[in-house]
């Protein structure tokens, strides 16, 4: 496949992740966008187009939230687009930004992700429940945890994975999160497997420490064409591959043990990047981890482990940040260790891969050499996979 322009990432920005931020959604968007521009060494005048991602309007509580956020995201008087695939939005925004530039139509694109879930009262659950079918599901008294615990039980049962093994994901990510400057207060920590397994049962098999939290936050990335990037940096980081795929919303008709749509998205990105053997050619990965089992589920969907093998590799430390022979997974701390302001959390994962490939992830930098990494997000009704591969 030929695209008129290669696309580079020039800078990234994040706000802290918080349970309740004082900033308005616009202010959060501005802080992240400004930071990304600063790292790129650019001003808003250098930006040709803006892409914004945020999850349902009902979290921020602003109807047409994309339009509301436009000026805070740097989109005032510019070609501006809002896109949305639920939890998959953070990475989907980068994909949208990518084709703005790959098409040859724009030199640069600022991608901003924002979420202020704390506005939703008494709890964002009321908004989440609207994802279920209003005729056949909602009247049963649903909550968001159901769908995850149903999928987790299916995954665990098909592959016979013990709860203690899945808890290792939370242990790893919550520990990694201690080193992230944006970590939400009270989330990261050095937990034992026992503490995680024995924490309050939310919706068995999901316990409290295996779920990410509600958060406020924003993130941003500056993308540019090859022609533009080469003028401002000697060492651009490239978007080598993108992929996305959506499965049917008849989720009770699918076997939830395996995310086929993630595999399709990954294959699309690998093909584009010319990757034949992802287990050798991907050096660091940020899979979407709103729940502990999700990371394993996604590592398998990304073809980085055989079906049912990700938990065994986890036990061996294959996904640890300091692995020398494995692939570090969620070195940022992920959603479990940093926080989960939905769209911003997905973008945080791309920002982490950018800093990892650039070699500026500081305390979080993977021990092994990183030339290429992958970020993936997931969302909607157990339904969408979005993948971005960055490389030197």
């Amino acid at each position, binding site marked *: 496949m030929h695209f008129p322009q290669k696309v580079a990432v020039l800078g990234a920005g994040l706000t802290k992740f918080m349970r*309740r931020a004082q900033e308005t959604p616009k202010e959060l968007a501005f802080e992240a966008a400004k930071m990304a*521009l600063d790292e790129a060494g650019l001003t808003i005048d250098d930006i040709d187009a803006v892409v914004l991602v945020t999850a349902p309007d*009902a979290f921020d509580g602003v109807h047409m939230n994309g339009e509301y956020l436009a000026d805070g995201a740097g989109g005032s008087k510019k070609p501006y687009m809002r896109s949305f695939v639920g939890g998959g939005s953070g990475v989907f925004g980068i994909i949208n930004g990518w084709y703005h530039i790959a098409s040859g139509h724009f030199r640069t694109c600022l991608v901003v992700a924002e979420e202020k879930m704390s*506005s939703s009262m008494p709890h964002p659950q*009321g908004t989440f429940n609207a994802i279920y079918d209003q*005729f056949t599901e909602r009247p049963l008294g649903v909550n968001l945890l159901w769908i995850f615990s149903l999928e987790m039980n299916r995954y665990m049962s098909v592959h016979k994975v013990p709860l203690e093994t899945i808890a290792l994901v939370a242990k790893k990510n919550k520990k990694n999160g201690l080193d992230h400057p944006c970590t939400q207060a009270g989330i990261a920590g050095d937990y034992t497997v026992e503490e995680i397994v024995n924490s309050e049962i939310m919706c068995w098999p999901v316990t409290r420490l295996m779920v990410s939290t509600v958060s406020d936050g924003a993130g941003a990335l500056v993308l540019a064409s090859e022609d533009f990037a080469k003028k401002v940096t000697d060492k651009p980081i490239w978007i080598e591959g993108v992929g996305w795929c959506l499965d049917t919303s008849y989720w009770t008709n699918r076997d939830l043990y395996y995310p086929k749509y993630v595999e399709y998205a990954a294959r699309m990105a690998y093909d584009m990047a010319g990757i034949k053997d992802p287990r050798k050619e991907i050096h660091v990965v940020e899979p979407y981890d709103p729940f502990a089992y999700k990371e394993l589920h996604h590592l398998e969907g990304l073809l980085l482990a055989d079906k049912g093998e990700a938990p065994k590799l986890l036990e061996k430390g294959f996904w640890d940040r300091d692995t020398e022979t494995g692939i570090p997974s969620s070195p940022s701390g992920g959603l479990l260790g940093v926080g989960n302001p939905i769209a911003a959390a997905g973008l945080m994962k791309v920002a982490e891969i950018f800093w990892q490939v650039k070699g500026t992830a500081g305390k979080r930098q993977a021990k092994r050499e990183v030339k290429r990494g992958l970020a993936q997000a997931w969302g909607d009704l157990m339904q969408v996979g979005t993948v971005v591969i960055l490389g030197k």
Partner: protein
Amino acid sequence: MFEKIEKFDKIRVWKGEKTGWHRYTYGIAGEMFFRKLMEKKFVAGKCPECERLFIPPRIYCEDCFVEIKEFVEIKELPRVYSFTFLFKDLEDNLLKEPEIVVFLKWDNIEGGLIHRLKEVNIEDVNFGLVVEPVFKEKPEGNINDILYWRPKK
């Protein structure tokens, strides 16, 4: 392809509602603006680059996309920039007397406020009319701390 519906009692609807409510913080700039309003003062944010002033203030200039750190008190009064007369309430009932909604702008300041105008004859409402705020006795930190505006006395 679809079955023709002949009996309308077969058409089914399922009723539901969106539950929940929202709590908004005023943000960094909003907090400052409304705290000052409680002291019966108006502040504008000043962009360090283009030097324009903004009301309500914000922490960034959306055109220069730089942080705004300077906030200045505005002592001048605003003018009516546009207006409309409301004759009916939200339930479609005729109002006893028309309500006047105005868009107020300060000279040489970007933005403005939407509010109510009272103590005025409808015939006298016009563009450029200088107005002054009438404040609530006990301010609560919201836009209704201004009860309404009236022509400058």
